[in-house]
């Protein structure tokens, strides 16, 4: 909760220039923050029994309301809050996607049926793993409803992240987005050691990356005398001198963002965190953080550093290639499905970077489309993973998936759809996404980048299909996991993910138009 407060504070001091803030445009952010505060209060004042339903109502209402506001704001292009927030096509598009995906993620988090002893989160994160209290709380069937305020804050941070127009807001948004995630990562009900380890790694590395980001913005500020992205852009064109400040600053800022994106060599937190966190949170992170981080990355690159394209393009070339290759190659020898999808998400980040490097309108549009397609597919995939279980919790080891296709064909089929989409087989969203990204890249002359991407996606196809092979070509054994019957929540999330994946693959035109009309970033 920064920008508005900042404004008010100023207003008390100097009444004669009130900051111009278009509350209508930033309403989504405010709504989510408000929801966060509200649910903190709910935690404080509503008796335990009632908390969960109230929290859910608050969250879902907030998400839907925010989405409504985004729709209402559709088409507007404005810089508000004293130039620190830019509401434009891409921003709104990403906000809308974020909200929808967050909605599905929230449903996964709210799921209570698949695990006999409650939801995916520890009854009390404070209790020691395996301790007496933990057992007690579990028996009493306590649920940790503190996840909801964290969730709301995180989402609000994301919404702010993709529209923030100066480095300070961006930094603050980054933290608002990340801090709750650090905590959520550590709250798994089962395998708590892993969960805590994930939280710590995520936190320390995240903090390190934000330090880089911050120092980078300091240098950029020193170079340009401002933290506004457009001003920085002007300064870059204005004075080519003092380039080392600019260069190092730009590099550090980009590093901070590439870390969140999960690009090689800043990717190593991804597998550990994805594997350790509670599966719904993993899905939430995998889908939304990717969107938010890429949103910010695109904005920085296209708005602030647009004049520097010839400097960062080669670097991103190499990073994109590394990311695609390392991600897909390491994934083929993974034995844990969550970890495999983590590496897959790294590879996917690489493919999106291919579109980013193009640095053209088509590139931007294709990246946006890819983000949308990828987010829904991922949520769906993790929904399935959350359902494949055995007595000790989720059965994430690949060997446990052998023959799943025979035991529960429908879920397996859904998962197959997601895998095919990630592999980029036609008639799925993933194919159109890859197609548009490659098209943009080739149009921009990055043919060789596309060739590498093609080879990488072949390697990727191998491990995606490996799961399919396991599920359908192997006999179910005693080891095979059973698919728990979920409540309406997961069902809806799963169905939505599958539907979007297929629809975007068969009739992508509307969304393609949307991303095309999203136009470029305002500056």
């Amino acid at each position, binding site marked *: 909760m920064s920008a508005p407060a900042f404004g008010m504070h100023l207003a008390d001091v100097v009444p004669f220039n009130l900051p111009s803030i278009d509350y209508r445009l930033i309403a989504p952010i405010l709504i989510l923050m408000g929801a966060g505060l509200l649910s903190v209060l709910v935690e404080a004042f509503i008796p335990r029994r009632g908390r969960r339903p109230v929290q859910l109502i608050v969250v879902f209402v907030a998400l839907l309301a925010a989405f409504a506001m985004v729709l209402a704001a559709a088409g507007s292009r404005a810089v508000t809050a004293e130039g620190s927030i830019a509401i434009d096509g891409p921003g709104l598009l990403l906000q809308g996607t974020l909200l929808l995906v967050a909605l599905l993620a929230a449903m996964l988090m709210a799921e209570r049926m698949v695990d006999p002893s409650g939801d995916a989160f520890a009854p009390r994160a404070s209790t020691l793993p395996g301790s007496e209290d933990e057992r007690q709380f579990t028996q009493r069937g306590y649920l940790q409803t503190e996840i909801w305020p964290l969730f709301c804050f995180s989402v609000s941070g994301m919404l702010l992240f993709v529209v923030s127009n100066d480095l300070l807001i961006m930094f603050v948004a980054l933290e608002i987005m990340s801090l709750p995630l650090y905590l959520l990562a550590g709250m798994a009900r089962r395998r708590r050691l892993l969960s805590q380890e994930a939280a*710590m*790694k995520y936190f*320390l*590395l995240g903090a*390190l*990356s934000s330090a*880089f980001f911050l120092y980078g913005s300091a240098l950029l500020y020193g170079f340009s005398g401002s933290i506004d992205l457009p001003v920085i852009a002007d300064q870059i064109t204005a004075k080519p001198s003092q*380039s*080392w400040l600019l*260069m*190092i600053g*730009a*590099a*550090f800022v*980009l*590093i901070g963002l590439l*870390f969140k994106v999960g690009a090689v*060599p*800043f990717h*190593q*937190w991804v*597998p*550990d965190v994805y594997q350790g966190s509670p599966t719904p949170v993993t899905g939430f992170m995998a889908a939304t953080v990717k969107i938010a981080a890429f949103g910010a990355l695109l904005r920085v690159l296209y708005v602030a550093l647009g004049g520097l394209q*010839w*400097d*960062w393009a*080669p*670097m991103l070339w*190499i*990073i994109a290639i590394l990311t695609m290759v*390392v991600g897909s*190659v*390491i*994934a*083929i*020898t*993974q034995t844990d499905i969550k970890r495999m999808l983590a590496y897959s998400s790294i590879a996917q980040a690489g493919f999106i970077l291919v579109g980013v490097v193009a640095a053209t309108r088509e590139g931007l549009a294709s990246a946006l489309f890819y983000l949308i397609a990828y987010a829904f597919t991922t949520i769906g995939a993790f929904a399935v993973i959350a359902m494949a279980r055995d007595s000790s919790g989720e059965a994430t080891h690949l060997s446990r998936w052998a023959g799943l296709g025979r035991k529960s064909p429908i879920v397996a089929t859904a998962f197959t759809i997601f895998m095919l989409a990630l592999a980029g087989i036609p008639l799925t969203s993933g194919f159109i996404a890859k197609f548009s990204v490659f098209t943009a890249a080739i149009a921009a002359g990055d043919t060789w980048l596309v060739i590498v991407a093609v080879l990488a996606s072949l*390697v990727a196809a191998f491990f995606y299909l490996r799961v399919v092979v396991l599920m359908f070509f192997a006999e179910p054994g005693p080891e095979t996991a059973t698919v728990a019957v979920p409540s309406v929540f997961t069902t809806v999330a799963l169905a939505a993910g599958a539907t979007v994946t297929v629809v975007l693959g068969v009739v992508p035109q509307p969304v393609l138009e949307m991303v095309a009309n999203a136009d470029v970033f305002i500056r």
Partner: protein
Amino acid sequence: MEQIMPATGAFSLIWVLIALPLAGAAVLLLGGRMTNKWGPYLGVLTVVGSAALGVVMLLQMMGLPAEDRSIQQVAYRWVFADGLSVDMAFRLDQLSMVFVLLITIVGSLIHVYSLGYMEHDPDRRKFFGYLNLFVAAMLLLVLANNYLLLYVGWEGVGLASYLLIGFWQVKPSAAAAAKKAFIINRVGDVGLGLAIMVMFVTFGSVTFADVFGQASAASEGTLTAIGLLLLLAACGKSAQFPLQAWLLDAMEGPTPVSALIHAATMVTAGVYLIVRSNAIFDRAVWAATAVVVVGLITVFMGAIIGSAKDDIKKSLAGSTMSQIGYMITAAGLGPIGYVFAIFHLLTHGVFKAGLFLGAGSVMHGMNDGVNMRRYGALRKVMVITTITFFIGYLAIIGIPPFAGFWSKDEIIHAAFEKGPVIGALLILGAGITGFYMSRMVAMTFFGKARWEDDVHPHESKAVMTIPLIILAIGSTVLGMALLFWGHIEEWLEPVTGIATAPSPLSTAATIGISLAFVIVGASIGWIMYLRREVPITAPRGSLLTRAARRDLYGDDVNEVLVVRPSYWLSRVLVWFDRAWVDGFVNGIAAFVGGFSGRLRRYQSGFARSYALSMVGGAVLVVLALLLVRLS
């Protein structure tokens, strides 16, 4: 080019000639068990029907003036594309007419004979089906009006021959022989196929009319190429050197098959092809010479093999090779030879069929034993067979007035016209013929009985002997009939070009010399195999004998030059495919996998190493950016 008449009257039924036996084959082969009973008789009827139709056509044709005797019937457009157009069309002229009669009449006789010969075979329905198929294919071969359609018949008879040689497939030897025959014939087919291609690129058409019509315009080189390729084809089909190896094994088939396919008709298709293509060979001297050479070589190969074999059928097969050698030689002599090649082909078709069927009749009585060393003195028990066989014998060695005498004599004479050496060689061949045929007759019908104990020879029954008798009559009169009554030269002249009439004097001379040689050879044979008792186990024999028993190493040569190398090559390629081509593909996969395994080790699980790679990456990125900027 000679003009070609539309098919009218009986000629409008040309297609029926083929369709009848083809339908018979279809019914018998698809009909299944239900046709077991009456199937064979249907098979006979279809061929007899074609024969009757053939005779009708002959009569109608004789009614026509000579230049109008080339009739064509176009059924429909068969294979076509821009620049290519081949019809399903038939051409009945004097040449194909005589073939039609030979095929259908001899075919009918052999069908009838088979009724008896195959009586006890469980699969006789199939047998007759195959025979019908053969007759249909053979008729297509001689009735086609273009080379591509001829090709269909060409391989059709090959197929029938394959099926019939391997009729007793349970015997591995039979199956192997069948495969061998087909594959060696395929080599010949390559020649035919390529010849057709050359014709097409040269003349833009593959019909006889177009090709022969424009032949004069083509360069001699092209014509020579075509001629040699056609010769290759002929060698395959007619078992001429160097593609002769299959014929002897082909005797694995039932004896009527040997009579019909491997004596009377199919093996003579090569002669037909060359004579039919006379327009080419007339203008390609070298090709024609090559034909003569091949023919001569085969005359002696066949004769020598025939003289050494103890298996009566193989001995006859050798003789067949030799006799076809005569025809091929004649066909190579040019216009003066063509007619007599065909003439000899017809007579040979009749008397050799008779001889084979006679051999079959003998085997029938001897529990299918073929070893002449276990025969002997059969003249007492099977009189008709003996007489008919003896007539055939007289015919083949060329004793006047039997059929073989006229035709062979004409060839020898024509050879002298071309060059004394050829004539001399042919006369020598005639002598050897006399020898091995006498040997055969002596061992089989005369001398002491050397039968195995459980063998009780007996004369075959009428259904088999009547065809023998008819063929024997044919062997007696056919020569004179064709020559003096049928005037075969004039009959064929429009197709084969003018045959220069031989001058009587030299005729007398050649007749005398050749007769002398024949008698000498024959008497040697008689003396050798009647004076002394024939040993039941063959003596080691001279080097030549042993070579001849091994078919003059024909198989060994093929084995060493072709078969072994190709199997070796295939084994090498199989290994190469697995180890290298596929190995490369799998190698890549393995490499990526290993790479992945090594790469994931860097994900050590220590937060600080992650931090390190981040900081390191940061430094690199900064350096990279500065480098890009400064450079």
